[in-house]
């Protein structure tokens, strides 16, 4: 515990320096803006901003990028409340009660409630991150390839089955992602796999090009041409109008607490994340409410709980990434890429080897959340005005930023072609219910999995029983079995969870 406390104090000192504060502010502001704007998300923005961070100190760059990531969760609800269009998938549930609240003239209240519950969710989860990540990392130092393979397998399985929709389609996307990951030069033998004679594919499909295509381009393809209507004018939102009544304020407390708990738990689980957390939190509140019929008509609980949940989830999702080096969200994979570029290798040794970076980053999360709370409340009018830009102006700009961002990775048109074509394929797949994030997780984790499997088999001399012989892996295997069994049961019952929009 003493280590944690002293580490945190040092981290806080670093996070409060002028440079760190400035870039944290920049990051969370960009994040809020981007989260609020439908059609461009945290992931696209982080990819585009990534090259900027190469010239910054590693910690500062990470602070800014992370700020964009969790800042977006604050902004996502703004469009949900004002336009009934979610800025991000994890804010989609907020439309259900947020938009009715806006129509009743309580948009200000809804916006304040989401800011405060987001803050609560985020800060409690940071506490969990501080306590759990170092412990988990220490535990993971005992992992060998056998355990890593199973953890990654579990992660992929989670991504495939826990996200909404057909688990079979989710599994297909994961496998497709892993398959795309095999393209390139085989590490052990040096031969080229599936490169079709092109020079660029010898390095495999660029992760950012695929991510931009799948989420940036595909997103634009599905949104282009749709109408767009704005409900509230900037003038009607004053600080006064944002205060909730005493009854409403009291009604928010327990939903925020429950949402935080749920989000903190789900953020940690691979495959689950802010989106699932927000949905489950809403469903839970509706089930627990004395009068469930209020939900969908402007129930303030329906706004507080999911927003607490999605912010909580986004903070705890850093735990597997920082302690094990396994990203549970495609955006986190990009953050990991940023770390690798600076020579910081994620994995269990990260926290001990680069303690100042870890604690500086965690402390910046606190700082960032406070900044966001301060930013969101007075600047609501500004966000409202910004949202009134029609989509037809936004999407060419987004496409331009995506194109130039992708091109600038290698100054190679090939990456842009990849992004465009994957965007096309992605649009077709997403339109038929295939979850895109699952493909990206497969692409990132697949090659690592292959390595670990090869090594595990070398260790065991070709015997699969090694998975049962080692205690940790046996437990992991049991968990995998449980998840598989519950998925089969779910399939058999023919019940599917609340359908989710396919954009992050």
């Amino acid at each position, binding site marked *: 515990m003493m280590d944690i406390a002293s580490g945190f104090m040092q981290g806080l000192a670093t996070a409060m320096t002028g440079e760190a504060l400035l870039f944290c502010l920049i990051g969370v502001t960009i994040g809020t803006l981007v989260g609020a704007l439908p059609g461009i998300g945290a992931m696209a923005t982080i990819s585009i901003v990534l*090259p*900027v961070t190469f010239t910054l100190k590693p910690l500062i760059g990470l602070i800014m990028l992370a700020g964009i990531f969790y800042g977006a969760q604050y902004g996502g609800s703004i469009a949900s409340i004002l336009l009934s269009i979610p800025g991000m998938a994890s804010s989609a549930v907020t439309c259900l009660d947020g938009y009715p609240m806006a129509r009743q003239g309580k948009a200000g209240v809804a916006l304040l409630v989401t800011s405060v519950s987001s803050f609560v969710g985020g800060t409690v989860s940071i506490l969990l991150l501080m306590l759990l990540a170092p412990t988990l990392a220490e535990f993971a130092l005992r992992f060998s390839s056998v355990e890593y393979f199973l953890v990654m397998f579990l992660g992929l399985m989670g991504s495939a089955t826990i996200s909404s*929709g*057909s688990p*079979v*389609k989710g*599994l*297909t996307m994961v*496998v*497709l992602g*892993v*398959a795309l990951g*095999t393209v390139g030069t*085989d590490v052990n*033998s040096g*031969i080229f*796999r*599936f490169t079709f004679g092109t020079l660029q594919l010898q390095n495999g499909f660029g992760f950012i090009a695929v991510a931009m295509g799948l989420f940036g*381009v595909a997103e*634009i*393809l*599905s949104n*282009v*041409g749709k109408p767009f209507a704005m409900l509230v004018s900037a003038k009607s939102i004053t600080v006064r109008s944002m205060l909730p009544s005493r009854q409403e304020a009291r009604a928010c407390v327990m939903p925020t607490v429950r949402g935080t708990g749920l989000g903190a738990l789900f953020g940690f689980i691979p495959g689950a994340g802010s989106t699932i957390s927000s949905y489950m939190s809403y469903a839970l509140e509706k089930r627990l409410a004395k009068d469930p019929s209020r939900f969908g008509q402007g129930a303030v609980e329906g706004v507080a709980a999911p927003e607490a949940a999605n912010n909580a989830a986004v903070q705890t999702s850093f735990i597997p990434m920082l302690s094990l080096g396994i990203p549970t969200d495609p955006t986190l994979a990009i953050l990991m890429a940023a770390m690798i570029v600076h020579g910081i290798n994620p994995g269990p040794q990260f926290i001990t080897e680069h303690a100042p970076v870890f604690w500086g980053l965690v402390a910046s999360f606190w700082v960032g959340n406070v900044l966001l709370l301060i930013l969101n409340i007075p600047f609501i009018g500004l966000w409202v005005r910004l949202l009134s830009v029609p989509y*037809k*102006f936004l*999407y*060419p*700009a987004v*496409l*331009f930023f995506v*194109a*130039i961002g992708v*091109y*600038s990775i290698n*100054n190679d*048109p*090939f*990456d*842009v*072609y990849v992004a*465009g074509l994957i*965007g*096309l394929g992605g649009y*077709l*797949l*997403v*339109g*038929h*219910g295939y979850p895109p994030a699952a493909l990206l997780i497969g692409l990132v984790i697949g090659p690592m999995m*292959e390595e670990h*499997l*090869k090594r595990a*088999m*070398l260790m065991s*001399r*070709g015997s*699969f029983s090694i998975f049962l012989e080692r205690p940790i892996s046996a437990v992991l295997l049991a968990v995998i079995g449980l998840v598989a069994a519950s998925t089969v049961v779910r399939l058999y019952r023919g019940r599917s969870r609340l*359908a989710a929009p*396919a954009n992050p």
Partner: protein
Amino acid sequence: MEHSTSRRTARTSANLREMAVAAAIAILGLYMVWEGRSYGIGSVREMGPGYFPVALGCVLTVLGAGLVLAGRGEQRQESFRLKPLLCIVGAMIAFGYLMPRTGFVPATIALVLLSVLADKGFRLWEVAVLLVVLPVLGYVIFVAVLGMPLDAVRWGA
């Protein structure tokens, strides 16, 4: 209960598309098995470069076939319009093609022109605004501020 025939045909073509997607996945799986074998499978103990691809290919084929047989699933796409698709993807390809050859101002112009074709609601002055603002903004952000080695305009090859 009346369904207009156009709605029915739209639904059927959506079903066909969904099955085509699943079939494409299965075919990709078969290709992976076929090509993967040529890389050398090796043994379980010493996995060759082809081991993983072949295994993945098998799984993909099974999944793809299963999805084809399962037939109809969720239908998110109400309408499938080809033109916006081609415009946006075309815009990306044009940008990529033109960037090294002509510098980024012509590339951006091509991208903007092609992408606005995707949305019918554009007025001429709005397109003009985008054509001016985006290259300038791009230059300021990416070349001036971020210092990327991109030529604004390139004459010749």
